[in-house]
């Protein structure tokens, strides 16, 4: 039962990440492939503030969200003038850069590769309360994201994606819009990173690699681009499926590779047959 609650919390965290990724990839049409870096920034910030400075975890998570937003915007600014594939390539490169940063400079607890020993508040300490809290935060994030995409700002996002020159022509600033949505996306990812650290109770650099970013892309791609339902559907279906493999009795040594191969097959099938995903409303253009 505890294990199911743990999986439930993980699914919720990935839903938040997918909502964040979908905001930039689906609604704004930017090929973001480096969100594992922001997830890592959030997780490392929340965990190290809590472990080394004794900051209360809910405050630490708020700071993690802030750091996620700041780092996201700082990494976006130099890349803004890149388009399409080059933007994707540069953000993919960010994963490797940040992996080395986490791995070489990230704080660690004595005699381990990463961070553990969080002091968690009651709401995150036990499996059942942790699941409930994570679920509540996820619902809040989903509702907030829905409001954002239905608001005038959301319309501006889709317009920036489809017709940037029209956005310019009516006196709005597409670059500014991109920066704003990127900050929101980074904040959500950073917050998810804080929850991720609390759920796993041990983090190290190997959790935040290009593979993680590719997994995010698979989740969002399968669920559906530019669709909140898609952001929820992707992680729910895929994580449930992988965990089902474990229950069928596949030895845990093979779960990782099988999952990875499955993601590969899904990516290929998606690109051939359904580029917008299951319930998506936008596809990988260009």
């Amino acid at each position: 039962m505890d294990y199911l609650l743990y999986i439930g919390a993980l699914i919720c965290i990935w839903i938040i990440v997918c909502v964040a990724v979908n905001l930039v990839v689906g609604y704004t049409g930017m090929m973001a492939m480096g969100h594992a870096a922001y997830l890592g920034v959030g997780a490392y910030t929340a965990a190290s503030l809590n472990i080394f400075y004794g900051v209360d975890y809910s405050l630490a998570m708020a700071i993690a969200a802030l750091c996620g937003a700041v780092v996201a915007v700082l990494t976006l600014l130099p890349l803004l003038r890149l388009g399409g594939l080059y933007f994707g390539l540069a953000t993919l490169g960010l994963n490797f850069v940040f992996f080395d940063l986490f791995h070489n400079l990230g704080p660690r607890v004595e005699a381990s590769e990463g961070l553990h020993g969080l002091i968690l508040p009651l709401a995150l300490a036990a499996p059942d309360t942790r699941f409930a809290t994570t679920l509540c935060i996820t619902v809040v994030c989903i509702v907030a994201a829905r409001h954002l995409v239905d608001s005038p700002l959301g319309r501006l996002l889709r317009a920036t994606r489809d017709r940037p020159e029209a956005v310019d022509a009516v006196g709005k600033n597409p670059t500014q819009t991109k920066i704003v949505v990127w900050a929101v996306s980074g904040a959500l990812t950073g917050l998810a990173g804080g929850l991720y650290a609390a759920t796993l109770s041990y983090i190290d650099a190997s959790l935040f690699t290009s593979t993680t970013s590719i997994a995010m892309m698979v989740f969002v791609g399968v669920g559906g681009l530019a669709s909140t339902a898609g952001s929820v559907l992707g992680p729910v279906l895929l994580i449930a499926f992988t965990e089902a493999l474990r229950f069928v009795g596949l030895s845990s040594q093979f779960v990782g590779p099988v999952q990875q191969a499955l993601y590969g097959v899904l990516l290929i099938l998606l690109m051939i047959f359904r580029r917008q995903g299951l319930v998506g409303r936008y596809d990988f253009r260009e």
Partner: protein
Amino acid sequence: MNTLQMLVVGLSLAGSYALLAVGFALIFATLRIFHIAHGTVFISAGYVFFVLHRVQGWALIPSGVIAVAAAALLGLAIDKAVYLPVLRRGGGMFGVFIASLGVALIFEAGFLMYTKGVVSVARTDMLDIMMVGPVAVRSIDLAVLSIVAVVYGLLYLWLHRTWVGIEVRGLTDNAPLAAVVGVNVDRTRNHIFLLASALAGLAGVFSAYDMGISPETGTRTLFVAVVAVILGGMSNLLLGTVVGSLALGVLTAYAGFFFPEWVTFGVFITMILLILVRPQGLFG
């Protein structure tokens, strides 16, 4: 460890990068396909070679030839089974890129299951080392570098003296126009994939023989080769990839000696800065 010695290490790294990079650049420049799975082709040849030479105990040359042939066919198969269907159903450059990532993931997972993450070294004996003045040179490095030189010479002749080569250069310049004036794009495409993949296979055989390969070696090495291509630029394919690979080889050799923890960081920061400052490459 003196400077000259590090230069030799860098040159031997550059050999594999150059073989991988020129094929990648060829495919990207002519067909606009960002072929991440080129690293998969490279590593697959390494594993075929490992299985034949080390596990089955075949002789060196036949295993190498079969591995290179397998790589060429694998490259062609990836194009036929994955890229063409994506393009036919209206996918663009980015769709092909993601599908290519998918191919890389599948193969990497397969190799991970086969090797359990252990490094596979295909050679069965020690490498012999010669002393040239103060510098130790391994005979395999000399072999690799001379083969790379021969390959580049042949590539130059192929691109400039044969009909297919001229068609390939035509595709690089202006693909629609080349098709209009009667270039058989499909046939040229097959040539390009076979040739580029065979070169990647050659690099894979060398890597498996020399330092050994592990499942993630493919994508990692490919990214270094991509950076080499971006550095050198694609307007002059052969010169660009040679210079880019040499620079990256020497850079990674030095960085690997002084800051081993930061090699990947250095390579990708270089890549991002290059994309920002000079996306057309040094000779673009």
